Protein backbone atom coordinates (compact mmCIF):
# COMPACT_ATOMS: atom_id res chain seq x y z
CA UNK A 1 0.00 0.00 0.00
CA UNK A 2 2.91 2.34 0.72
CA UNK A 3 3.84 2.39 -2.94
CA UNK A 4 0.44 3.89 -3.72
CA UNK A 5 0.94 6.88 -1.41
CA UNK A 6 1.87 9.32 -4.20
CA UNK A 7 -1.43 8.81 -6.02
CA UNK A 8 -3.47 8.60 -2.81
CA UNK A 9 -2.06 11.99 -1.90
CA UNK A 10 -4.01 13.45 -4.84
CA UNK A 11 -6.95 11.12 -5.24
CA UNK A 12 -8.15 11.19 -1.64
CA UNK A 13 -8.95 14.92 -1.53
CA UNK A 14 -10.05 14.88 -5.16
CA UNK A 15 -12.63 12.11 -4.80
CA UNK A 16 -13.90 13.45 -1.50
CA UNK A 17 -14.94 16.69 -3.21
CA UNK A 18 -18.03 15.19 -4.94
CA UNK A 19 -19.08 13.61 -1.60
CA UNK A 20 -18.80 16.94 0.17
CA UNK A 21 -21.19 18.45 -2.39
CA UNK A 22 -23.88 15.97 -1.46
CA UNK A 23 -23.49 15.94 2.31
CA UNK A 24 -25.83 17.81 4.67
CA UNK A 25 -25.66 19.66 7.07
CA UNK A 26 -22.84 22.08 6.34
CA UNK A 27 -21.08 21.31 9.61
CA UNK A 28 -20.61 17.74 8.46
CA UNK A 29 -19.15 18.99 5.18
CA UNK A 30 -16.60 20.98 7.19
CA UNK A 31 -15.77 17.95 9.32
CA UNK A 32 -15.32 15.75 6.25
CA UNK A 33 -13.13 18.37 4.56
CA UNK A 34 -11.02 18.69 7.69
CA UNK A 35 -10.69 14.90 8.02
CA UNK A 36 -9.67 14.58 4.37
CA UNK A 37 -7.16 17.39 4.67
CA UNK A 38 -5.70 15.81 7.81
CA UNK A 39 -5.39 12.50 5.98
CA UNK A 40 -3.56 14.24 3.14
CA UNK A 41 -1.22 15.82 5.71
CA UNK A 42 -0.62 12.40 7.24
CA UNK A 43 0.18 10.93 3.82
CA UNK A 44 2.64 13.75 3.18
CA UNK A 45 4.35 13.06 6.53
CA UNK A 46 4.58 9.37 5.67
CA UNK A 47 6.20 10.25 2.37
CA UNK A 48 9.14 12.00 4.10
CA UNK A 49 11.23 8.87 4.74
CA UNK A 50 10.12 7.16 1.52
CA UNK A 51 11.35 9.95 -0.71
CA UNK A 52 14.45 10.89 1.26
CA UNK A 53 17.90 11.13 -0.28
CA UNK A 54 18.44 9.93 -3.80
CA UNK A 55 15.50 7.57 -3.92
CA UNK A 56 12.66 9.40 -5.67
CA UNK A 57 9.39 7.50 -5.74
CA UNK A 58 8.10 6.89 -9.24
CA UNK A 59 4.47 5.94 -9.81
CA UNK A 60 3.34 5.15 -13.37
CA UNK A 61 -0.41 5.77 -13.55
CA UNK A 62 -2.45 3.07 -15.26
CA UNK A 63 0.64 0.89 -15.32
CA UNK A 64 1.88 2.72 -18.44
CA UNK A 65 5.51 3.65 -17.99
CA UNK A 66 6.77 7.10 -18.87
CA UNK A 67 7.18 8.65 -21.37
CA UNK A 68 4.08 6.95 -22.81
CA UNK A 69 1.90 7.22 -19.75
CA UNK A 70 1.85 9.86 -17.04
CA UNK A 71 4.05 9.27 -14.05
CA UNK A 72 4.16 10.79 -10.61
CA UNK A 73 7.49 11.54 -9.04
CA UNK A 74 8.04 12.28 -5.37
CA UNK A 75 11.43 13.39 -4.07
CA UNK A 76 12.46 15.56 -1.13
CA UNK A 77 11.66 18.71 -3.06
CA UNK A 78 8.10 17.57 -3.69
CA UNK A 79 7.66 16.35 -0.11
CA UNK A 80 8.65 19.75 1.26
CA UNK A 81 5.89 21.39 -0.76
CA UNK A 82 3.37 18.63 -0.09
CA UNK A 83 3.89 19.31 3.62
CA UNK A 84 3.45 23.04 3.18
CA UNK A 85 0.21 22.68 1.18
CA UNK A 86 -1.51 19.97 3.20
CA UNK A 87 -0.34 21.45 6.50
CA UNK A 88 -1.61 24.91 5.59
CA UNK A 89 -4.98 23.54 4.54
CA UNK A 90 -5.38 21.42 7.67
CA UNK A 91 -4.49 24.10 10.21
CA UNK A 92 -6.49 26.81 8.49
CA UNK A 93 -9.55 24.54 8.42
CA UNK A 94 -9.04 23.67 12.08
CA UNK A 95 -8.82 27.28 13.20
CA UNK A 96 -11.21 28.69 10.64
CA UNK A 97 -14.64 27.23 11.31
CA UNK A 98 -16.16 30.29 13.00
CA UNK A 99 -14.47 32.69 10.65
CA UNK A 100 -15.75 30.85 7.57
CA UNK A 101 -19.21 30.59 9.07
CA UNK A 102 -19.29 34.37 9.51
CA UNK A 103 -18.23 35.08 5.94
CA UNK A 104 -19.85 32.39 3.78
CA UNK A 105 -23.59 31.94 3.52
CA UNK A 106 -24.51 28.71 5.23
CA UNK A 107 -26.50 27.30 2.30
CA UNK A 108 -23.40 27.61 0.17
CA UNK A 109 -20.86 26.04 2.50
CA UNK A 110 -21.05 22.69 0.65
CA UNK A 111 -19.96 24.26 -2.62
CA UNK A 112 -17.29 26.18 -0.77
CA UNK A 113 -15.76 23.12 0.88
CA UNK A 114 -15.98 21.18 -2.39
CA UNK A 115 -13.94 23.94 -4.02
CA UNK A 116 -11.54 23.90 -1.06
CA UNK A 117 -10.83 20.19 -1.53
CA UNK A 118 -10.36 20.65 -5.27
CA UNK A 119 -7.93 23.51 -4.67
CA UNK A 120 -6.04 21.25 -2.27
CA UNK A 121 -6.03 18.32 -4.72
CA UNK A 122 -5.00 20.58 -7.58
CA UNK A 123 -2.05 22.08 -5.70
CA UNK A 124 -0.89 18.67 -4.49
CA UNK A 125 -1.33 17.27 -8.00
CA UNK A 126 0.97 19.92 -9.50
CA UNK A 127 3.69 19.05 -7.02
CA UNK A 128 3.83 15.29 -7.63
CA UNK A 129 3.32 15.30 -11.40
CA UNK A 130 6.29 14.58 -13.62
CA UNK A 131 4.49 15.36 -16.86
CA UNK A 132 4.59 18.86 -18.32
CA UNK A 133 1.04 18.75 -19.70
CA UNK A 134 -0.43 17.09 -16.63
CA UNK A 135 0.99 19.95 -14.57
CA UNK A 136 -1.08 22.31 -16.73
CA UNK A 137 -4.28 20.33 -16.06
CA UNK A 138 -3.77 20.37 -12.30
CA UNK A 139 -2.72 24.00 -12.39
CA UNK A 140 -6.13 24.75 -13.89
CA UNK A 141 -7.99 22.74 -11.24
CA UNK A 142 -6.10 24.59 -8.51
CA UNK A 143 -6.61 27.98 -10.17
CA UNK A 144 -10.32 27.61 -10.89
CA UNK A 145 -10.93 26.37 -7.35
CA UNK A 146 -8.91 29.29 -5.90
CA UNK A 147 -10.97 31.81 -7.91
CA UNK A 148 -14.11 30.33 -6.35
CA UNK A 149 -12.69 30.49 -2.83
CA UNK A 150 -11.54 34.08 -3.26
CA UNK A 151 -14.84 35.29 -4.71
CA UNK A 152 -16.77 33.63 -1.89
CA UNK A 153 -16.75 36.35 0.73
CA UNK A 154 -19.21 39.15 1.43
CA UNK A 155 -16.87 41.85 0.14
CA UNK A 156 -17.91 42.95 -3.34
CA UNK A 157 -14.42 44.26 -4.06
CA UNK A 158 -13.32 40.64 -4.27
CA UNK A 159 -15.20 40.27 -7.56
CA UNK A 160 -13.22 42.66 -9.79
CA UNK A 161 -10.05 41.46 -8.04
CA UNK A 162 -10.77 37.83 -8.78
CA UNK A 163 -11.72 38.59 -12.37
CA UNK A 164 -8.33 40.22 -12.86
CA UNK A 165 -6.72 37.17 -11.26
CA UNK A 166 -8.69 34.88 -13.58
CA UNK A 167 -7.54 36.79 -16.65
CA UNK A 168 -3.89 36.94 -15.59
CA UNK A 169 -3.88 33.37 -14.34
CA UNK A 170 -5.32 32.08 -17.61
CA UNK A 171 -2.83 34.08 -19.64
CA UNK A 172 -0.08 32.59 -17.48
CA UNK A 173 -1.38 29.05 -17.98
CA UNK A 174 -1.74 29.57 -21.73
CA UNK A 175 1.81 30.94 -21.99
CA UNK A 176 2.95 27.84 -20.15
CA UNK A 177 1.02 25.70 -22.63
CA UNK A 178 2.66 27.46 -25.60
CA UNK A 179 6.04 26.73 -24.05
CA UNK A 180 5.15 23.06 -23.58
CA UNK A 181 3.95 22.96 -27.21
CA UNK A 182 7.25 24.36 -28.51
CA UNK A 183 9.17 21.83 -26.45
CA UNK A 184 6.96 19.07 -27.80
CA UNK A 185 7.65 20.19 -31.38
CA UNK A 186 11.38 19.87 -30.79
CA UNK A 187 11.51 16.73 -28.64
CA UNK A 188 8.25 14.83 -29.18
CA UNK A 189 7.73 14.09 -25.52
CA UNK A 190 6.06 15.53 -22.43
CA UNK A 191 7.63 13.74 -19.47
CA UNK A 192 10.08 16.10 -17.81
CA UNK A 193 12.90 13.57 -17.33
CA UNK A 194 12.40 12.30 -20.86
CA UNK A 195 12.56 15.84 -22.24
CA UNK A 196 15.80 16.28 -20.27
CA UNK A 197 17.34 13.24 -21.97
CA UNK A 198 16.19 14.30 -25.44
CA UNK A 199 17.04 17.99 -25.25
CA UNK A 200 20.83 17.60 -25.66
CA UNK A 201 20.30 16.07 -29.12
CA UNK A 202 18.17 19.00 -30.29
CA UNK A 203 20.41 20.92 -32.63
CA UNK A 204 18.49 24.16 -32.84
CA UNK A 205 18.09 25.90 -29.56
CA UNK A 206 16.01 28.89 -30.61
CA UNK A 207 12.55 27.30 -30.10
CA UNK A 208 13.69 25.87 -26.76
CA UNK A 209 14.93 29.27 -25.70
CA UNK A 210 11.61 30.83 -26.63
CA UNK A 211 9.81 28.01 -24.82
CA UNK A 212 11.89 28.78 -21.73
CA UNK A 213 10.80 32.40 -22.01
CA UNK A 214 7.12 31.55 -22.30
CA UNK A 215 7.17 29.02 -19.47
CA UNK A 216 9.06 31.41 -17.19
CA UNK A 217 6.77 34.36 -17.88
CA UNK A 218 3.65 32.22 -17.57
CA UNK A 219 4.71 30.83 -14.23
CA UNK A 220 5.98 34.21 -13.05
CA UNK A 221 2.46 35.56 -13.63
CA UNK A 222 1.05 32.79 -11.46
CA UNK A 223 3.76 33.27 -8.83
CA UNK A 224 3.17 37.05 -8.70
CA UNK A 225 6.85 37.77 -9.30
CA UNK A 226 7.38 41.53 -9.57
CA UNK A 227 6.31 43.24 -11.90
CA UNK A 228 3.64 40.60 -12.61
CA UNK A 229 2.19 40.84 -9.12
CA UNK A 230 -0.68 43.19 -9.96
CA UNK A 231 -3.41 40.66 -9.14
CA UNK A 232 -2.09 39.66 -5.75
CA UNK A 233 -2.67 42.52 -3.26
CA UNK A 234 -6.37 42.93 -4.00
CA UNK A 235 -7.23 39.24 -4.22
CA UNK A 236 -5.54 38.56 -0.88
CA UNK A 237 -7.10 41.58 0.79
CA UNK A 238 -10.70 40.98 -0.25
CA UNK A 239 -10.85 37.19 -0.09
CA UNK A 240 -12.48 35.55 2.95
CA UNK A 241 -9.89 35.68 5.76
CA UNK A 242 -9.26 31.95 5.98
CA UNK A 243 -8.91 31.66 2.21
CA UNK A 244 -6.23 34.33 2.37
CA UNK A 245 -4.43 32.33 5.05
CA UNK A 246 -4.52 29.14 2.96
CA UNK A 247 -3.56 30.68 -0.37
CA UNK A 248 -0.94 33.04 1.04
CA UNK A 249 0.79 30.08 2.63
CA UNK A 250 1.09 28.00 -0.50
CA UNK A 251 -0.41 29.04 -3.82
CA UNK A 252 2.26 31.36 -5.28
CA UNK A 253 5.00 29.09 -3.97
CA UNK A 254 3.69 26.23 -6.07
CA UNK A 255 4.18 28.25 -9.25
CA UNK A 256 7.74 28.98 -8.10
CA UNK A 257 8.18 25.26 -7.44
CA UNK A 258 7.18 24.39 -11.03
CA UNK A 259 9.39 27.18 -12.37
CA UNK A 260 12.43 25.90 -10.48
CA UNK A 261 11.77 22.25 -11.24
CA UNK A 262 11.42 22.78 -14.99
CA UNK A 263 14.14 25.39 -15.29
CA UNK A 264 16.74 23.40 -13.39
CA UNK A 265 15.86 20.06 -14.95
CA UNK A 266 15.55 21.22 -18.55
CA UNK A 267 17.00 24.57 -19.38
CA UNK A 268 20.01 25.21 -17.16
CA UNK A 269 21.93 22.17 -18.33
CA UNK A 270 20.86 22.26 -21.97
CA UNK A 271 20.75 25.86 -23.05
CA UNK A 272 24.03 27.63 -23.52
CA UNK A 273 24.18 30.83 -21.53
CA UNK A 274 20.86 30.17 -19.83
CA UNK A 275 22.42 30.21 -16.37
CA UNK A 276 23.51 33.77 -16.92
CA UNK A 277 20.10 34.78 -18.34
CA UNK A 278 18.40 33.22 -15.35
CA UNK A 279 20.52 35.28 -12.96
CA UNK A 280 20.48 38.51 -14.92
CA UNK A 281 16.70 38.45 -15.28
CA UNK A 282 15.70 37.24 -11.87
CA UNK A 283 18.09 38.92 -9.43
CA UNK A 284 17.01 42.48 -10.33
CA UNK A 285 13.35 41.44 -10.36
CA UNK A 286 13.76 39.83 -6.96
CA UNK A 287 15.40 42.94 -5.52
CA UNK A 288 12.69 45.20 -6.90
CA UNK A 289 10.02 42.85 -5.53
CA UNK A 290 11.62 42.87 -2.09
CA UNK A 291 11.86 46.65 -1.93
CA UNK A 292 8.55 47.47 -3.62
CA UNK A 293 6.65 44.94 -1.52
CA UNK A 294 8.05 46.30 1.74
CA UNK A 295 7.53 49.91 0.65
CA UNK A 296 3.88 49.36 -0.32
CA UNK A 297 3.30 47.42 2.89
CA UNK A 298 4.51 50.44 4.87
CA UNK A 299 2.07 52.74 3.10
CA UNK A 300 -1.14 50.69 3.08
CA UNK A 301 -3.88 51.10 5.62
CA UNK A 302 -5.85 47.87 5.15
CA UNK A 303 -4.68 45.26 7.65
CA UNK A 304 -4.68 42.34 5.22
CA UNK A 305 -3.30 44.36 2.34
CA UNK A 306 -0.23 45.27 4.39
CA UNK A 307 0.65 41.62 4.64
CA UNK A 308 -0.41 40.89 1.06
CA UNK A 309 2.21 43.41 -0.07
CA UNK A 310 4.61 41.81 2.32
CA UNK A 311 4.00 38.54 0.43
CA UNK A 312 5.11 40.22 -2.80
CA UNK A 313 8.37 41.04 -1.04
CA UNK A 314 8.77 37.60 0.53
CA UNK A 315 8.30 35.92 -2.87
CA UNK A 316 11.22 38.16 -3.86
CA UNK A 317 13.45 36.60 -1.16
CA UNK A 318 12.62 33.10 -2.44
CA UNK A 319 13.38 34.10 -6.02
CA UNK A 320 16.58 35.85 -4.94
CA UNK A 321 17.85 32.73 -3.20
CA UNK A 322 16.97 30.56 -6.18
CA UNK A 323 18.48 33.00 -8.69
CA UNK A 324 21.88 32.71 -7.00
CA UNK A 325 21.92 29.16 -8.47
CA UNK A 326 24.11 27.81 -5.69
CA UNK A 327 23.43 25.01 -3.28
CA UNK A 328 23.30 27.39 -0.33
CA UNK A 329 21.09 29.84 -2.20
CA UNK A 330 18.57 27.17 -3.10
CA UNK A 331 18.56 25.76 0.42
CA UNK A 332 17.85 29.24 1.74
CA UNK A 333 15.07 29.78 -0.82
CA UNK A 334 13.37 26.48 0.00
CA UNK A 335 13.71 26.93 3.74
CA UNK A 336 12.30 30.41 3.35
CA UNK A 337 9.28 28.97 1.51
CA UNK A 338 8.68 26.83 4.55
CA UNK A 339 9.20 29.48 7.21
CA UNK A 340 7.26 32.10 5.29
CA UNK A 341 4.33 29.72 4.79
CA UNK A 342 4.27 29.08 8.53
CA UNK A 343 4.57 32.73 9.54
CA UNK A 344 2.21 34.18 6.92
CA UNK A 345 -0.37 31.45 7.53
CA UNK A 346 -0.29 32.23 11.25
CA UNK A 347 -0.48 35.94 10.58
CA UNK A 348 -3.56 35.71 8.37
CA UNK A 349 -5.33 33.24 10.66
CA UNK A 350 -4.67 35.64 13.53
CA UNK A 351 -5.96 38.63 11.56
CA UNK A 352 -8.98 36.55 10.55
CA UNK A 353 -9.82 35.74 14.15
CA UNK A 354 -9.46 39.34 15.27
CA UNK A 355 -11.54 40.39 12.28
CA UNK A 356 -14.47 38.56 13.85
CA UNK A 357 -14.49 41.58 16.20
CA UNK A 358 -13.35 44.32 13.85
CA UNK A 359 -15.92 46.40 12.00
CA UNK A 360 -13.93 46.65 8.78
CA UNK A 361 -10.61 45.70 7.26
CA UNK A 362 -9.12 49.14 7.98
CA UNK A 363 -6.17 49.13 10.33
CA UNK A 364 -8.03 51.53 12.65
CA UNK A 365 -10.77 48.93 13.23
CA UNK A 366 -8.18 46.73 14.91
CA UNK A 367 -7.31 49.42 17.46
CA UNK A 368 -6.91 48.00 20.93
CA UNK A 369 -8.02 44.51 19.96
CA UNK A 370 -4.67 43.15 21.12
CA UNK A 371 -5.44 44.22 24.66
CA UNK A 372 -8.71 42.40 24.66
CA UNK A 373 -7.35 39.23 23.02
CA UNK A 374 -3.79 38.95 24.28
CA UNK A 375 -3.35 35.30 23.24
CA UNK A 376 -4.21 35.91 19.60
CA UNK A 377 -2.12 39.06 19.62
CA UNK A 378 0.89 37.18 21.00
CA UNK A 379 0.58 34.66 18.18
CA UNK A 380 0.43 37.50 15.65
CA UNK A 381 3.49 39.09 17.23
CA UNK A 382 5.49 35.87 17.00
CA UNK A 383 4.48 35.42 13.36
CA UNK A 384 5.48 39.01 12.67
CA UNK A 385 8.88 38.54 14.31
CA UNK A 386 9.44 35.50 12.11
CA UNK A 387 8.51 37.55 9.02
CA UNK A 388 11.01 40.22 9.99
CA UNK A 389 13.62 37.60 10.82
CA UNK A 390 14.32 38.09 14.53
CA UNK A 391 16.80 35.51 15.92
CA UNK A 392 15.10 32.49 17.45
CA UNK A 393 12.42 32.23 14.79
CA UNK A 394 12.26 30.12 11.63
CA UNK A 395 12.28 33.29 9.57
CA UNK A 396 15.64 34.32 11.02
CA UNK A 397 17.23 31.04 10.01
CA UNK A 398 16.18 31.22 6.36
CA UNK A 399 17.21 34.86 6.08
CA UNK A 400 20.54 34.08 7.71
CA UNK A 401 21.14 31.30 5.19
CA UNK A 402 20.20 33.70 2.40
CA UNK A 403 22.75 36.25 3.63
CA UNK A 404 25.42 33.56 3.82
CA UNK A 405 24.58 32.48 0.26
CA UNK A 406 24.87 36.09 -0.89
CA UNK A 407 28.27 36.43 0.80
CA UNK A 408 29.53 33.52 -1.32
CA UNK A 409 29.06 35.66 -4.43
CA UNK A 410 32.26 36.94 -6.03
CA UNK A 411 30.72 40.31 -6.99
CA UNK A 412 27.74 42.38 -6.10
CA UNK A 413 27.27 40.85 -2.68
CA UNK A 414 27.23 44.23 -0.98
CA UNK A 415 24.37 45.57 -3.09
CA UNK A 416 22.24 42.50 -2.40
CA UNK A 417 23.04 42.66 1.30
CA UNK A 418 21.91 46.27 1.40
CA UNK A 419 18.62 45.25 -0.24
CA UNK A 420 17.99 42.47 2.28
CA UNK A 421 18.89 44.61 5.30
CA UNK A 422 16.97 47.64 4.10
CA UNK A 423 13.85 45.58 3.44
CA UNK A 424 14.16 43.98 6.88
CA UNK A 425 14.18 47.44 8.43
CA UNK A 426 11.14 48.39 6.38
CA UNK A 427 9.33 45.27 7.53
CA UNK A 428 10.07 46.26 11.13
CA UNK A 429 8.31 49.53 10.36
CA UNK A 430 5.11 48.04 8.99
CA UNK A 431 5.00 45.32 11.63
CA UNK A 432 5.49 47.90 14.38
CA UNK A 433 2.67 50.01 12.96
CA UNK A 434 0.31 47.01 13.06
CA UNK A 435 1.35 45.90 16.57
CA UNK A 436 1.11 49.45 17.85
CA UNK A 437 -2.48 49.61 16.63
CA UNK A 438 -3.23 46.31 18.33
CA UNK A 439 -1.71 47.08 21.71
CA UNK A 440 -1.55 50.79 22.46
CA UNK A 441 -5.03 52.27 22.02
CA UNK A 442 -7.56 51.28 24.68
CA UNK A 443 -9.76 48.33 23.85
CA UNK A 444 -13.06 49.34 22.24
CA UNK A 445 -15.99 49.32 24.63
CA UNK A 446 -18.58 47.47 22.61
CA UNK A 447 -18.43 44.00 21.02
CA UNK A 448 -18.16 40.42 22.13
CA UNK A 449 -15.50 39.51 24.64
CA UNK A 450 -14.22 36.04 23.80
CA UNK A 451 -12.68 34.58 20.70
CA UNK A 452 -13.37 30.91 19.89
CA UNK A 453 -11.12 29.08 22.33
CA UNK A 454 -10.17 26.12 20.14
CA UNK A 455 -9.20 28.37 17.25
CA UNK A 456 -7.05 30.53 19.53
CA UNK A 457 -5.27 27.43 20.81
CA UNK A 458 -4.50 26.26 17.28
CA UNK A 459 -3.29 29.74 16.40
CA UNK A 460 -0.90 29.78 19.37
CA UNK A 461 0.33 26.29 18.53
CA UNK A 462 1.31 27.18 14.97
CA UNK A 463 2.81 30.45 16.15
CA UNK A 464 5.05 28.52 18.51
CA UNK A 465 5.90 26.18 15.63
CA UNK A 466 7.71 29.18 14.10
CA UNK A 467 9.84 29.36 17.25
CA UNK A 468 10.26 25.60 17.46
CA UNK A 469 11.54 25.34 13.90
CA UNK A 470 13.76 28.34 14.57
CA UNK A 471 15.46 26.56 17.48
CA UNK A 472 15.31 22.95 16.24
CA UNK A 473 15.36 23.21 12.47
CA UNK A 474 16.58 19.68 11.69
CA UNK A 475 13.53 18.49 9.75
CA UNK A 476 12.98 21.45 7.41
CA UNK A 477 16.77 21.92 7.05
CA UNK A 478 17.28 18.34 5.94
CA UNK A 479 14.37 18.50 3.54
CA UNK A 480 15.54 21.81 2.08
CA UNK A 481 19.12 20.58 1.69
CA UNK A 482 18.04 17.38 -0.02
CA UNK A 483 15.59 19.33 -2.15
CA UNK A 484 18.41 21.62 -3.27
CA UNK A 485 20.36 18.44 -4.13
CA UNK A 486 17.37 17.28 -6.18
CA UNK A 487 17.26 20.54 -8.09
CA UNK A 488 20.97 20.70 -8.80
CA UNK A 489 20.93 17.07 -9.84
CA UNK A 490 23.40 15.70 -7.28
CA UNK A 491 22.76 11.99 -7.18
CA UNK A 492 20.17 12.16 -9.96
Amino acid sequence: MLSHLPILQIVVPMLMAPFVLLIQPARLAWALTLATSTLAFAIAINLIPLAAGDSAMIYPIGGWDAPYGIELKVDSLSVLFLLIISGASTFVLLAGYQSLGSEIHEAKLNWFFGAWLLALAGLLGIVVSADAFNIFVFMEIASLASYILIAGGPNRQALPAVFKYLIMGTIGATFYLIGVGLIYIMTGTLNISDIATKLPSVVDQTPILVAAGFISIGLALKAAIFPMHAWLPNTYSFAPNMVTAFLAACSTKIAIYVLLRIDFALFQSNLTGHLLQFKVFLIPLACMAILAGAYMAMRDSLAKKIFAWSSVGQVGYIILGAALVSHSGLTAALLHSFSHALAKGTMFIGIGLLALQAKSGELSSFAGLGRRHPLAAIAITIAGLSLVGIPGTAGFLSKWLLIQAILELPTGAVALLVVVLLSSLMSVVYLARFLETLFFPPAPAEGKVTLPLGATAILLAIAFASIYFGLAPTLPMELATQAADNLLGYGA
Partner: protein
Amino acid sequence: MIVLDLFHYWTFIALLMMGFYTVIAKNNLVKRLLGLSLFQSAVFLLFIGIAKVEGGTTPIFTNLVDTQVFSNPLPQVLILTAIVVGISTSALGLAIILRIKEAYGTIEEDEIQSEEEEA
Protein backbone atom coordinates in the same frame (compact mmCIF):
# COMPACT_ATOMS: atom_id res chain seq x y z
CA MET B 1 3.03 22.65 -48.79
CA ILE B 2 5.50 25.29 -47.64
CA VAL B 3 2.84 27.96 -48.09
CA LEU B 4 0.51 26.07 -45.80
CA ASP B 5 3.28 25.59 -43.26
CA LEU B 6 3.96 29.27 -42.86
CA PHE B 7 0.30 30.10 -43.16
CA HIS B 8 -0.69 27.99 -40.21
CA TYR B 9 2.01 29.54 -38.17
CA TRP B 10 1.10 33.05 -39.17
CA THR B 11 -2.56 32.44 -38.47
CA PHE B 12 -1.64 31.13 -35.05
CA ILE B 13 0.44 34.21 -34.32
CA ALA B 14 -2.22 36.57 -35.69
CA LEU B 15 -5.02 35.00 -33.64
CA LEU B 16 -2.87 34.81 -30.54
CA MET B 17 -2.01 38.49 -30.80
CA MET B 18 -5.59 39.57 -31.50
CA GLY B 19 -6.75 37.65 -28.45
CA PHE B 20 -3.92 38.93 -26.29
CA TYR B 21 -4.54 42.52 -27.36
CA THR B 22 -8.25 42.22 -26.60
CA VAL B 23 -7.51 40.84 -23.15
CA ILE B 24 -5.12 43.59 -22.11
CA ALA B 25 -6.44 46.65 -23.95
CA LYS B 26 -10.24 46.36 -23.83
CA ASN B 27 -12.29 47.87 -21.08
CA ASN B 28 -15.40 45.70 -21.31
CA LEU B 29 -15.18 42.54 -19.19
CA VAL B 30 -17.23 40.35 -21.57
CA LYS B 31 -15.05 41.46 -24.44
CA ARG B 32 -11.94 40.57 -22.47
CA LEU B 33 -13.33 37.12 -21.78
CA LEU B 34 -14.05 36.66 -25.50
CA GLY B 35 -10.48 37.73 -26.18
CA LEU B 36 -9.27 35.16 -23.70
CA SER B 37 -11.05 32.35 -25.52
CA LEU B 38 -9.67 33.63 -28.83
CA PHE B 39 -6.21 33.56 -27.25
CA GLN B 40 -6.71 29.96 -26.19
CA SER B 41 -8.16 28.91 -29.58
CA ALA B 42 -4.98 30.13 -31.23
CA VAL B 43 -2.96 27.73 -29.09
CA PHE B 44 -5.31 24.89 -30.07
CA LEU B 45 -4.53 25.65 -33.71
CA LEU B 46 -0.79 25.49 -32.96
CA PHE B 47 -1.06 22.04 -31.38
CA ILE B 48 -3.34 20.58 -34.06
CA GLY B 49 -0.91 21.94 -36.65
CA ILE B 50 1.91 20.06 -34.91
CA ALA B 51 -0.11 16.86 -35.12
CA LYS B 52 -0.53 16.91 -38.89
CA VAL B 53 1.52 14.37 -40.83
CA GLU B 54 1.79 14.78 -44.59
CA GLY B 55 -0.53 12.32 -46.33
CA GLY B 56 -1.89 11.01 -43.03
CA THR B 57 -5.46 10.55 -41.93
CA THR B 58 -7.42 10.77 -38.69
CA PRO B 59 -5.88 8.27 -36.25
CA ILE B 60 -8.75 5.79 -36.35
CA PHE B 61 -8.20 2.31 -37.73
CA THR B 62 -10.83 1.55 -40.36
CA ASN B 63 -11.27 -0.75 -43.30
CA LEU B 64 -12.35 2.14 -45.48
CA VAL B 65 -8.91 3.60 -46.03
CA ASP B 66 -5.97 1.31 -46.65
CA THR B 67 -3.33 3.84 -45.69
CA GLN B 68 -1.00 3.16 -42.80
CA VAL B 69 -0.05 6.78 -42.29
CA PHE B 70 -1.83 8.51 -39.43
CA SER B 71 -1.56 11.97 -38.02
CA ASN B 72 -0.10 12.24 -34.55
CA PRO B 73 -2.83 11.49 -32.00
CA LEU B 74 -1.09 12.87 -28.91
CA PRO B 75 -1.42 16.64 -29.49
CA GLN B 76 -5.06 16.07 -30.44
CA VAL B 77 -5.72 14.41 -27.09
CA LEU B 78 -4.02 17.28 -25.29
CA ILE B 79 -6.18 19.82 -27.09
CA LEU B 80 -9.37 17.90 -26.28
CA THR B 81 -8.48 18.43 -22.65
CA ALA B 82 -7.47 22.04 -23.22
CA ILE B 83 -10.78 22.88 -24.95
CA VAL B 84 -12.66 21.62 -21.91
CA VAL B 85 -10.44 23.65 -19.60
CA GLY B 86 -11.12 26.70 -21.78
CA ILE B 87 -14.91 26.45 -21.59
CA SER B 88 -14.70 25.88 -17.82
CA THR B 89 -12.68 29.06 -17.41
CA SER B 90 -15.14 31.00 -19.59
CA ALA B 91 -18.15 29.75 -17.61
CA LEU B 92 -16.58 30.73 -14.30
CA GLY B 93 -15.50 34.08 -15.72
CA LEU B 94 -19.04 34.78 -16.92
CA ALA B 95 -20.46 33.96 -13.51
CA ILE B 96 -18.04 36.43 -11.93
CA ILE B 97 -18.99 39.08 -14.51
CA LEU B 98 -22.68 38.56 -13.70
CA ARG B 99 -21.97 39.14 -10.03
CA ILE B 100 -19.88 42.22 -10.85
CA LYS B 101 -22.77 43.58 -12.91
CA GLU B 102 -25.13 43.09 -9.98
CA ALA B 103 -22.74 44.61 -7.45
CA TYR B 104 -21.55 47.60 -9.49
CA GLY B 105 -24.17 48.02 -12.20
CA THR B 106 -21.59 48.04 -14.97
CA ILE B 107 -19.17 45.76 -16.76
CA GLU B 108 -16.75 48.46 -17.89
CA GLU B 109 -13.54 48.27 -15.92
CA ASP B 110 -12.87 51.99 -15.51
CA GLU B 111 -16.43 52.59 -14.25
CA ILE B 112 -15.97 49.83 -11.68
CA GLN B 113 -12.76 51.49 -10.54
CA SER B 114 -14.29 54.95 -10.26
CA GLU B 115 -17.23 53.56 -8.27
CA GLU B 116 -14.73 51.84 -6.00
CA GLU B 117 -12.99 55.13 -5.30
CA GLU B 118 -16.24 56.94 -4.54
CA ALA B 119 -17.36 54.27 -2.06
